[in-house]
């Protein structure tokens, strides 16, 4: 069952607040007498006070909060104020990171990923072999290409290939240049 509350009728604007105080019995003696005198002549204000008596009891009263609630509320407020002051005291170094606000997490994440990437590279071989064996003059595309590495590893054999084939009883490549033949002969001598 719904409780319909009729809206309050308007009272005289000058008396409205005083009428509420009058209703609650919080007007002084002189003001109370003035209100009664006014209401004797003003039907609207009299109806307004009657309506207050009708409407206000239907409104939910504020719950009575126990004293422990107010004690803990006070303690929490003091603690929050202390924490706020502590933050204020620390803010001199936080100010340094102020421009990075919103960037700290992605920056930290990127740094972690970069560190992980370096660790991945280094974990394949130990740090000494990674740093201690520089490969001067050899381009990176050669270093990462196993076919080219094999080619340069076999270069001496390739230079001597025709001679080796002749010695092995096979047919030497007729295109072998004199220079390479001389070099091969020298290397096999």
């Amino acid at each position: 069952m719904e409780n319909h509350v009729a809206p309050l009728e308007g009272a005289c604007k000058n008396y409205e607040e005083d009428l509420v105080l009058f209703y609650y019995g919080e007007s002084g003696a002189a003001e109370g007498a003035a209100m009664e005198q006014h209401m004797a002549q003003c039907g609207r204000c009299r109806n307004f006070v009657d309506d207050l008596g009708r409407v206000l009891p239907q409104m939910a009263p504020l719950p009575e909060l126990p004293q422990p609630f107010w004690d803990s509320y006070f303690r929490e407020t003091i603690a929050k104020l202390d924490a706020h002051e502590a933050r204020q005291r620390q803010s001199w170094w936080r100010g340094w990171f102020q421009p990075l606000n919103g960037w700290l997490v992605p920056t930290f994440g990127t740094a972690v990923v970069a560190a992980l990437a370096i660790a991945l590279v280094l974990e394949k071989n130990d740090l000494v072999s990674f740093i201690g064996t520089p490969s001067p003059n050899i381009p990176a595309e050669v270093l990462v290409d196993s076919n080219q590495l094999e080619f340069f590893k076999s270069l001496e054999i390739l230079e001597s290939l025709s001679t080796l084939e002749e010695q092995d009883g096979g047919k030497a490549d007729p295109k072998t240049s004199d220079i390479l033949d001389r070099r091969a002969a020298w290397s096999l001598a």
Partner: protein
Amino acid sequence: MKTRKLFLIVLGFFLLLESGALADGDDWRKLNPKEKDSIRRNYERWEKLPPQDKEHLRQEWDRWNRMPQDRRDRLKQRFNDHRRNQD
């Protein structure tokens, strides 16, 4: 701001993948010091060769790769024997 964050995240993943690829493809670091030294010397020598010698060696390399494995092993063995005798 969101675009920059997204860019950083994508960059991070790219770094991660790239490092993995580099780590996997870097055959150089799997070689022993003697092999590395040999390759380094041969590369430096190769750089000084005239173009026709380079072309010839490329052809020899193709021919070498087309040879049967047993013949390659035999020639390599012969080469190593000569080298040992030389030392």
